[in-house]
């Protein structure tokens, strides 16, 4: 209720603030002469930056970075989540809304994701999980599936090419899911990317692809059973007919909760603190069900390609409001 209505209202609040600041800026400028007639020659569309306006761009960029860092400095007074998950919802709606091809919608989502990851890293978030592609998504049209897979392959290959840059930012990438469902080039690229970034420690990005939570649980149960099979065989060799010994066999061969936990894909990572699902959807869609027991679910109305700094800041402020309660709940287990 808070996240869905509040963040739509928060967007309005920030928009109004932006309008107010713009009006203040215009009032200050208006002290001097305002031209009656301005003409624009729309050149430079093919070139990204021009001399002169490039300097102004740099100035505004630096100002923006400075203000963002100030904002993060203030927000960091409170608790910063260790682990944030994103469900990248609303890409197809974004493409439809802007009348652009589906692929362009996914590419816009990727750009927004890069910014989100950058902001998370600057804030000190250690783990970020992304629901890139669900096992259920394979039921989409073959063209759409191919488009997403090709885009993922393209981006992973760029990551491999920019290995030194990725190392400089300390980004470790882990692909989680039923990877055997992916096509071979993507699977090989994913494995290479995981190997290349294994020693990076600043931020860990879990990319969940060909993933569902129920599939992850089944996989963990299967691995636990296989482990226990070895224990069972060894225990059987050592038992006698004595009752106590049989109890001992039973104890070592029972699958416990800790065994299943050990075999979950994200074993070793802290449990989720915030799950952000965009486009105002209120369900988890089979994502990180096991890890989200005490995690705050945040559902802003914005479509994922439109997600920005303020949405992330709002999510973290909401998290800070409930942090002591959620910590208390975690300790009660």
């Amino acid at each position, binding site marked *: *209720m*808070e*996240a869905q*209505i*509040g963040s739509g*209202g*928060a967007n309005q*609040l920030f928009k109004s603030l932006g309008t107010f600041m713009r009006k203040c800026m215009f009032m200050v400028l208006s002290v001097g002469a305002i031209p009656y007639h301005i003409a624009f020659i729309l050149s430079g569309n093919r070139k990204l930056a021009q001399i002169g306006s490039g300097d102004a761009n740099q100035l505004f960029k630096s100002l923006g970075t400075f203000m963002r860092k100030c904002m993060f400095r*203030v*927000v960091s*007074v*409170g608790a910063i989540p260790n682990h944030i998950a994103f469900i990248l919802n609303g890409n197809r709606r974004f493409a439809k809304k802007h009348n652009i091809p589906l692929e362009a919608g996914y590419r816009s989502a990727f750009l927004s994701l890069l910014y989100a990851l950058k902001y998370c890293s600057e804030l000190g978030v250690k783990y970020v999980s992304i629901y890139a592609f*669900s096992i*259920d*998504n394979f*039921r*989409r049209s073959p063209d759409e599936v191919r488009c997403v897979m090709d885009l993922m392959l393209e981006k992973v290959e760029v990551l491999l090419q920019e290995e030194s840059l990725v190392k400089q930012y300390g980004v470790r990438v882990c692909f989680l899911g039923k990877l055997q469902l992916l096509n071979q080039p993507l699977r090989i690229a994913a494995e290479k990317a995981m190997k290349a970034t294994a020693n990076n420690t600043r931020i860990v990005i879990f990319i969940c692809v060909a993933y*569902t*939570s*129920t*599939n992850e*649980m*089944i*996989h963990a*149960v*299967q691995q*636990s*059973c296989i482990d*226990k*099979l070895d224990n*069972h065989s060894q225990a059987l060799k050592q038992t006698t007919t004595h009752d106590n010994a049989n109890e001992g066999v039973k104890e070592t*061969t*029972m*699958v*416990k*909760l800790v*065994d*299943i936990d050990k075999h979950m894909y994200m074993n070793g990572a802290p449990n989720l603190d915030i799950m952000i699902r965009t486009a105002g*959807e*209120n*369900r*988890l*869609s*089979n994502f990180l*069900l*096991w890890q*989200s*027991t*005490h*995690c*705050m*679910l*945040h559902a802003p109305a914005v479509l994922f390609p439109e997600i920005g700094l303020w949405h992330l800041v709002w999510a973290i*402020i909401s998290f*800070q*409001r*409930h942090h002591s*309660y*959620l910590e208390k*709940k975690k300790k009660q287990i």
Partner: protein
Amino acid sequence: MDFKDQTQKIGHLGVRLLWHLLHFIVSLWYFALGIVNAIESYLISRGVLKRYKTLDIGKLQYLAIVVESEDAHQITKVIELLQCLMAIGVKRVCLYDTEGILKKSKESILARLNNATLFEEADEKNLLLDHDHNKHITLEFTSSSDGKEAVAKAANILFMKYLQLGDYRKSEEDSFFTEAHMTEALRAVGCRGPEPDLLLVYGPARCHLGFPVWRIRYTEIMHMGPLKSMRSGSLIKAIYRFTMVRQNYGK
């Protein structure tokens, strides 16, 4: 050095002050939002807002309610909630709290409600799909022991069967460990409830608090605030919003 320390201290103090100011502004915002929601809820329950009058309750097959364990002690409030749901026309409800306080109070809750049956009894008598029970409500009580711990118990059932596969273990592994078999194993350990369509969370934060994980794959999760501020208008609004949702299930 002293001057530098002093400046740093003042700087830290200034940043902390800004943080408190930021949270104060956000709290004011939520306070104002709370007042708006309370007024809206009042108008909905009085029937003033027309669009909430035509509620397609048939779309809501199974409703789950997560109650913060401290609030779960307020049995009167829980009964009031269930009575509101019955008045709206909800027929099947699963109540969950982490510590199982509602489970321990189930006899008391059933006694104080008219026409309420336990889910397990209704399941045995095949009453769950009986739409003639107009004013009847079926209640299921769950706690954290029906969540991850139940998955561990179900895993042991699968393990025992896995052992029995003997020499065929290796070849049968992938077809043995499936979601269908896990669902079956969960039923065997007593977790027979279906997946809820909608889960309402009564507590400080929007968090499912360990509701049986196997059952909330595609469940809509809505936060209703603390149980003490439960209103029938908010319930109607939440159910109405649920009926407007269109799911693709990943497609």
